[in-house]
Structure formats: C-alpha cells, structure tokens
C-alpha cells in the first residue's frame, strides 16, 4: 500500500493541533506512534526533514496523508474523538451543486465543499496534491471509482452544475495547455486525456462541472480548467469536489479532504447536492456528510475475540481514544466510526481497533492448549523416501524455479510439435524467460549441467519437485505432479548407470517394473525406455540426445531419469 512523503515539522505541528506549540518528536517515539496507523517509517532525511512512511491498511485511506496520521496520534493523546462541526446538520451551505439527469449512466456521484481561511503554503500544497493523487490512484483505482478536484473558490458562482455535454460542444483551457480545447481534443491530445480517457470514453456525452456563468471548472475525472482549477501557494479560499461511481466512496473521500483542510485551519462549509434521481442519501443532501450509523456490539464478542475480560470501561476508553463515538449500554457498546472512516464491516474490525488502541503489548500471549496430531501427507512421505534413496545413490539434490521458458522446457529438448511439449503458459508474460511452468524436471537439471562444466566430474544430481501437466479433465486445467528427475553427466555417462539406479530405487520401493523402448525426441533412439509398473507408465529414462546437449552447450554425455512420485502412491 502507499508510501507517502511528508515533512517532520508539518507532522509535528498537526500532532500538536491548532492550540498547542509543536514539540520535537524523537523518531523512536514516532515509530511507536506509527503502530496506531499501521505505518512504518521507511526513511528520514535529516537535512530536508522529509519522512517516508509506508501505510499498510488499504481500508483506511484517511491515513494515507500527513493530516490523517497526525489526527490518529492526536486523538490518542487527548483520549477522545475530534469533533468536526461541518458534519452536523448545517445552518448554512456555500451553494448548490446540481447533478444533471443521465449522469447515473456515466459517472453518477459528486460531493463538494468549500474551505476558507487556510492560506495554502508550499508544503501544504505538496501534501494536498499527494493526498489527491494517492486517493484517486489507489483508493479510486486510477480515478475510475473516485477522482478529486481542487479549485480557487473566488471565481466560482453558485449553483455549480454537474452536466453531460457533447464532446465538441464545450471548450476550455485545461491545466498544462495554453489554448482552448474541446473535450474530444482533450481526450485525444492532452496527456491526462490519453491516460484516463478510457474511464469515460465510449459515452456520447461527457461530464463537465460548470458554474452558474457557464465557466468550466473541470472535465472529471480527466482534467481541471487552468483558470479556476489551479490552486496556488497563497490561495485561502478553496472549492473541493469529488466525483465517482460509488456513492459511499465519493462521500468518504470528500469527508477525508474536509477533515484534512479543517485540521490545517480552514473553515469548511458544506455544499448542497441536488440529484435528479433518488440515491441512498435521497435527492438532496449536504456534503460533507456523516453517513455512518451506530452499531451495537456485545461486549462479550470483543472480550472473547481478544481473550481478555477488558470490561466496558476499558473498551469504551480504548475506542474513544481511537476516534470512535461510543456509548456503553449494559452488556453492549454502541460504536460509530468517525465520518472520515468507512471500514466497519464486522465486529472484528472494532476488535482490532480496541487492540491497536490499547497496544498489542497489553495482551499477554497464551499457548493454544488443544492437542493435535502432526504429520506429513503420504505424498511428502514418499517424496522424502525417494530423496533419501537418491542421496544414498550419491546424487546431489537441486532446487530449481518452476517457472521458466518454452525454449528451455520444450525447444531445447527437441519436443516442439509433440504431446510432450504441452505446458501451462502464462497470459500476462513479464519476461520470456519466465513464461510457463515446467512439465518435467530434466530441463532444470540440464540447465545446472550447462552452468557447471568447471565443477569436477562425475556430476550426479536430482530434484524432487512439482511440475504442472496440462490435463483437460482436471478442475484447474492442469495437474500438479511431484516428480523425481535425475541426471548423470561425465565423459563415460551411460544408459546402464541410470538404469541401475532405477532398478535399485524401485526395488527398495517394492515396485516391480519393466522397461519398454520409447521413441522420445529428447533421448537417443534405441537408448530410452518407459518405466512401466503395474501396467502404467510411471516414468522414463535414457541417454540424452546429442542435439539436446548441443542446444544446452553441454560438452559431456548425459543420461536422465524422470518419474512421477504421485504414481507410486497408487494401490498396486
């Protein structure tokens, strides 16, 4: 999840809050506090004061910013939630934002507010932009579900409309450009249009935000207007809007922004949203909006999940000092998340917050007491028996990657065009060297041989490992098979050497077998055999074909053995 960059001074000021003097926080203290936000200090630049913090929790986008981290720590310090007045029923709204009919087909939801009284500083602006980017990119899935716009409030005349227009009908100068462009031109030419155009592409009418005078604020989720939508250092009156496809996510994102700006000293005034269709918030509502609801949780549920009889008092104070609104009522606690959070799916989410708020050290470890019998699967037991026998036969064990290339597994083995060349292939190949799963082990061992001409001879090596064999009858289209592969390579490597090994192995495993000639392109004709046991082919062995050795640039003869260990488990 996201790693963010912030300024130590800024963080310290926000932790202190508007009424306190900021104090220097030692880094080890900070690291302790970062446990409250599942954050890890990844870097610190003493010269610039930059801190890099990685935030783990993908359900807590409110924490992916300096303000959110500071807020969670500050709440712990003061022991209770911070109340934001603008989430209460507002007496006054800054204006209206009217959603046009048909918008539900394209990008249905919008939320907005104004923020006045915080003069944007350079580092504050950097933080605003970083939060905007992280939220839109990760939480908003590259602006698909959520995107955010920040504007200078002064030029905007309410009501603002969230409209659908034809791509050629509206022109404005987008950020990063000098001239007026139509929406169609923006989609075709502007870098952001090219990058994000796919989100709204395919619709014959596109969304725009315009004010009462018809001035374009932005073309969401692509780009803001250059005139209104470029916030600069020194601005102190802002308009913030969020558009998207999921109403709770859109509302939550605006709530986070409103809380962040309020923490920096801005006065937030809600905007009234008017929708032509009914939503879960109705047809008219103000944003920011506290859409959470209290949830009654049995105290017992929390206590038994934590294994600790905390009592109502401790649970209440733990949750309060983590930002919850809590009312204890008998054997239950009624809890409500702060409006900048929406990650309460289950009681267990509250349970974890209690534990984090109290610190994990509060909970003494207890050994699980119930008796269980340990053991290995039959397959693993058989694989281990085979491995021990191979070690006794003086083979060195190898471990190889299962992922590799068609070139290595098939082409170099002279298997192209045969049934033996069927492999599980990857659709989204990152590198041709890692494009499929091995269907047998011999190529992995020949790879080692090819790399090892300077190791003294003879070379005897084996691997017991998994391979994937395509099989239409299998649930997932392939069988995962545990195979034994072995290779002997030296100047006098000979069929009889590997034959003796097979003979001895199957003797010890009590599996009578016969060898039948097999015509296999990887082996010399007339020097390869199928191992048949109980009427089934369980493997093969032979002298590796000189052309295969040439493909691998191996300069000594080699013999190989390959068999399915799974088959040894079948009843005789």
């Amino acid at each position, binding site marked *: *999840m996201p790693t963010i960059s912030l300024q130590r001074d800024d963080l310290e000021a926000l932790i202190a809050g508007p009424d306190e003097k900021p104090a220097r926080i030692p880094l080890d203290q900070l690291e302790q506090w970062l446990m409250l936000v599942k954050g890890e200090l990844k870097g610190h630049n003493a010269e610039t004061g930059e801190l890099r913090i990685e935030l783990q929790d993908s359900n807590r986008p409110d924490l992916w910013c300096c303000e959110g981290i500071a807020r969670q720590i500050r709440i712990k310090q003061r022991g209770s939630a911070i109340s934001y007045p603008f989430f209460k029923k507002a007496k006054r709204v800054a204006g209206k934002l009217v959603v046009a009919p048909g918008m539900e087909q394209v990008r249905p939801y919008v939320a907005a507010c104004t923020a006045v009284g915080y003069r944007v500083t350079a580092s504050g602006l950097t933080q605003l932009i970083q939060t905007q980017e992280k939220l839109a990119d990760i939480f908003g899935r590259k602006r698909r579900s959520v995107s955010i716009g920040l504007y200078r409030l002064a030029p905007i005349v309410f009501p603002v409309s969230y409209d659908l227009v034809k791509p050629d009908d509206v022109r404005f100068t987008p950020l990063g450009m000098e001239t007026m462009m139509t929406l169609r031109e923006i989609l075709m030419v502007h870098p952001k249009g090219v990058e994000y155009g796919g989100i709204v592409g395919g619709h014959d009418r596109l969304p725009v935000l315009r004010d009462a005078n018809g001035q374009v604020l932005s073309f969401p989720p692509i780009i803001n207007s250059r005139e209104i939508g470029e916030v600069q250092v020194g601005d102190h009156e802002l308009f913030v809007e969020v558009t998207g496809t999921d109403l709770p996510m859109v509302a939550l994102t605006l709530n986070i922004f409103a809380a962040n700006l309020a923490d920096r000293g801005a006065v937030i005034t809600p905007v009234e949203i008017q929708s032509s269709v009914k939503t879960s918030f109705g047809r008219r509502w103000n944003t920011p909006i506290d859409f959470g609801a209290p949830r009654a949780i049995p105290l017992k549920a929390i206590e038994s*999940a934590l294994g600790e009889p905390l009592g109502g008092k401790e649970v209440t104070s733990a949750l309060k000092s983590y930002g919850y609104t809590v009312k204890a009522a008998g054997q239950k606690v009624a809890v409500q998340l702060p409006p900048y959070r929406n990650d309460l799916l*289950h009681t267990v989410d509250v349970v974890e917050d209690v534990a984090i708020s109290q610190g*994990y050290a509060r909970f003494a470890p207890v050994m699980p007491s119930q008796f269980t019998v*340990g053991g290995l699967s039959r397959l693993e037991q058989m694989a281990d028996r085979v491995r021990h026998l191979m070690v006794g036969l003086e083979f*060195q064990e190898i471990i190889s990657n299962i992922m590799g290339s068609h070139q290595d597994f098939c082409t170099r083995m002279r298997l192209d065009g045969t049934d033996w060349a069927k492999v599980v292939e990857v659709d989204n190949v990152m590198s041709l060297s890692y494009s499929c799963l091995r269907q047998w082990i011999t190529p992995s061992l020949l790879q080692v041989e090819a790399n*090892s001409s300077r190791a003294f001879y003879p070379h005897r090596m084996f691997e017991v490992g998994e391979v994937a064999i395509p099989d239409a009858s299998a649930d997932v*289209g392939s069988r995962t098979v545990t195979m034994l592969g072995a290779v002997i390579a030296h100047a006098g490597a000979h069929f009889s050497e590997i034959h003796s090994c097979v003979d001895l192995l199957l003797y010890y495993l009590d599996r009578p077998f016969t060898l039948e000639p097999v015509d296999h392109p990887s082996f010399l004709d007339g020097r390869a055999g199928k191992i048949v046991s109980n009427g089934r082919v369980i493997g093969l062995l032979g002298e590796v074909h000189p052309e295969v050795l040439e493909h691998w640039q191996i300069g000594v003869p080699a013999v190989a053995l390959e068999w399915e260990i799974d088959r040894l488990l079948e009843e005789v």
Partner: protein
Amino acid sequence: MDNLHPLESKVLLALARKPGVPPTLDQLAESTGLEPSQLSMAVEWLLAKSLIAVHSETVAHIASLTPVGELFFEKYSPIERVLSAAREAGQTGRRLTIQDIQAKEALEPSDVSKAVGTLKKEGAILIVQGGCIESTGRNSATAEGMRSLLQDLRSGQRELQSFSEPLRNVLQQHAVKRGNAREPFRIDERVTRSFVLTPSGQEVAEQLSRDGVAEEVSQLTPELLKEGAWRTKRFRKYTISLRAPRIAAGKRHPYREFLDLVKLKLVSMGFQEMRGTLVETEFWNMDALFMPQFHPARDIHDVYFVKNPTHARTIAEPYLTQVTQVHEKGTGAGSTGWGYPLDAERAKRLVLRSQGTAVSARTLAAGASVPGKYFSIARCFRYDQVDAPHATDFFQVEGIVLGADINFRTLLGLLNLFAREVAQAKEVKFLPAYFPFTEPSVEMHVRHPKLGWMELGGAGLFRPEVTTPLGVSVPVIAWGLGLDRMAMVALGIHDIRDLFSADLEFIRTMRGSF
C-alpha cells in the same frame, strides 16, 4: 624413527657411510642413486625432522649460452664478422664503411658499433678518413675469447671460476644484464649446500645400519591378510596432515535441508501438512479470502494469469454461492459485506497461485479438523521483476489453527512458539498489521541471534467472512512465516536467487549452519 620413508633411510645411510667430507646434493645423488626430485624431497623431510643439517652453503656463478649465444655460435659473433670483413676488405683494397658492414652482414647497428668500438680499442682496426675501417692485421683478444667461449659453453654450462681471467672478463662483458638482453652469455648464481648428520641423525643412521631397513609396504592387500604375511611387514606411515583429495557427496540441497528442518519443527508442534496445486482459480486464491474483486487490496497480489484454459469450468458449491453472498451482503457472517456483486466468471479465472493461503482456504472447505493445526510449504508465484530481493517463484510457509480456544491472545501465544522453535528467538515484538483476510492482524518481529530485529511472519484471525462461507464455525488463526532471510543467513548467501542456483560447484560447496 618409525616413520622414516624409504627415501629418507637411503639418504641417512649414504651420509653415515661416508663421514668426512659433507656431500653436496649432486654427490648424494650419485651415492644414493636417487632421482633429483626424490632426493630433494627426502632431504627436505630430513631437514624438517632435524636428522640432517646444512653444513655449508656456497654460491657458485654458472655461465651458460643464451639463445643469442646459440645464434652467434652458428653464424659467428658480430665482432668476428666485423673483423673478418675488415680483413677481407684490406686484401681486396676496397673501402669499407660501417654502413657497408651492416648491409653486407645484416647486423644490428648497435651490435656493429659495439664490435667496432671493441676492435678499435684493441687495435685490431683503425678508423680512417671518411669513416672507413681498415684492418691493422693485429688479432683481437675479445674476438678470439668469444669464439672459444661459444665453443666451450655450447657443450654445457660451466662454473665461471673455471675460466681464465681474460675469458672471465669477456664473459662478464657479454653476459645478459638488466636492460641488455641481446647478449650471448648469462651468469647465474647457484647455491650449493652440503649436508651432515645431526647427532640424532647419527643415532638413527646407526640404528638403521644395525637393524637394516625393514621392508615397508604401503597398502595392506588381501594376499597379505590371507597369508598372514602382514605380521612381518612394516606399514609406512602417511603424512596425514596433507590435504585430502576432493570427492563429491550425495546430499540434500542445503536450502531443502533448512526447509526439512522447518517441516520437522512444524510436525513436532502438531501441524498436519496440506498440499495444493500450482494453478489456482481466483476464487480460492482471493475471493474465498474475502478480498473484494474491485479493491486495492487485490493489487497487492498482482498475479500471473494462465493462457489456456483461461477459466475453470466450475467452482464447487455451496462455496461459490456462499462466498458470493458474503462479498455482497455479508450474509451469514454477521458482516455488512463489500456491497458489490461478485463476478462468477472472474472467480473462475485461472492464475498461478500467488499465496499459500489459497491452500488453507481449500483445507477449510474440505472439512478441517477441530481442533486442528495445518501447514504447507507451497511454491507461489509473484508477478514481479526478478531481482535480488525477488524470485519468480518461492516457497511460502503458512498454515492455519482451528479451535474453540482460539483468540487474539492464543494467536500471540502461537507466534511466541514459532519464534522460539523456528527462529530460536527469545525476544518477540507484535505490531499491528494489515492482511485482507485477517482481523486482528499481527506482524511478528523477533530478535534473531545474527540478524537482530527482523520480521519473522504475519498472522491474524481469519475474518468470519472467510470462515463462515467455507463451513467453519470456530475461530481460525492464519499464519505465514517469512523464512527466506533466515535461510539466507543460515546458508551464507546474499542473493535470494542463489537459493535456486544452477551452479553445481556452488551447490556442492554451500553449507548451512542451523
């Protein structure tokens, strides 16, 4: 005394036989009849045992021909050729310049001018007007000396001292020196040592000549055993401090040895092994773990998709329905759910298993025992660039614990046990963590004896949204251990790709300390 090599005995006896003049190595070679290499070996051993000592050390100067000298012998030296050219010119009355000689004799200018210089000094030639050379008819001592030296040394090297003084001078003037390799002779220093018996050597030698040299055998043979003849033989003692010849062992891969040990520890703690498939459906890899299809959490697990077939035919019921409902509305699990419709087609999409937890999910659905402990060491695939900290496929050690007594504190207790048993760590720290399928979630850090504080693993209690749809009604711990760093330290390697090395020499020599 017992451990005298036959060669040593020979040398000792030779020295004892001829008291008086301490013999040199050459003389010893003659009296013992040993090859020079055998002799010098024996002498070194005896010196090391202080049975003999160096009596004197003399430095001799040995003169020999260089390849240039060989050439001079064949074609005469430049000085001779210059002199004879001058004489020949005198007889025919022709005028001869230095350049003429160079051209005629095909000599290096430096050789010619050096020869002319010497001849002029010796009065054998004159340089007259116009730079012409004339023979005076007098002999040149250098030219003659050179001729006789070339002749003498051609048959072999000789001591410098054995030449007369004038010849020695010629030799020294025309010997290879630093900065001038084009000379016919070279003079080397040779150290000649002579040896005497030490008092203890004397004793040993006397004993040897008294008792005679017993017949020594180096190898006990079946014949010696059969006939009992070994009783009359002496077995030569070996110099056992020598380095042993290298052999290759049949052995387990050191990383596998490490994993075997982990396996053993887990089994001994009461864990049952589970196995899964390399190819999985998104359903078992993610959906069953309550990772919503739309959610950023899913991006953590960037996966490899299978090309053909792209989808599994079916997902087993009732799991598909129950998991779908829990994603949508939290049905049955006491949850709100994620509030979106799960795409069943996407659930069937085949991927390369990206997390071992998929194996745990399947085990839960297949009817895990309660109480029950399970583990798997599963090969997983990560859609990532291959570089030092990443490999395309890697082993994940993970598992589950089911039981009515499972809660947050028993989770911490289990992790403590892992820290002690698997990492031999005494100090443990628990940090809040995030995994999409557990709540609460913990990251365990331990103080490793070599690495200091390190993350050993992550764990948590499976969300009820994971367990309920799979038919499990007791709390379940899900845990995973990150052991690769520990393995790398134990094996002394720095690049994770070396765990899967394809270099036999490296694998043969890699060893673990665990």
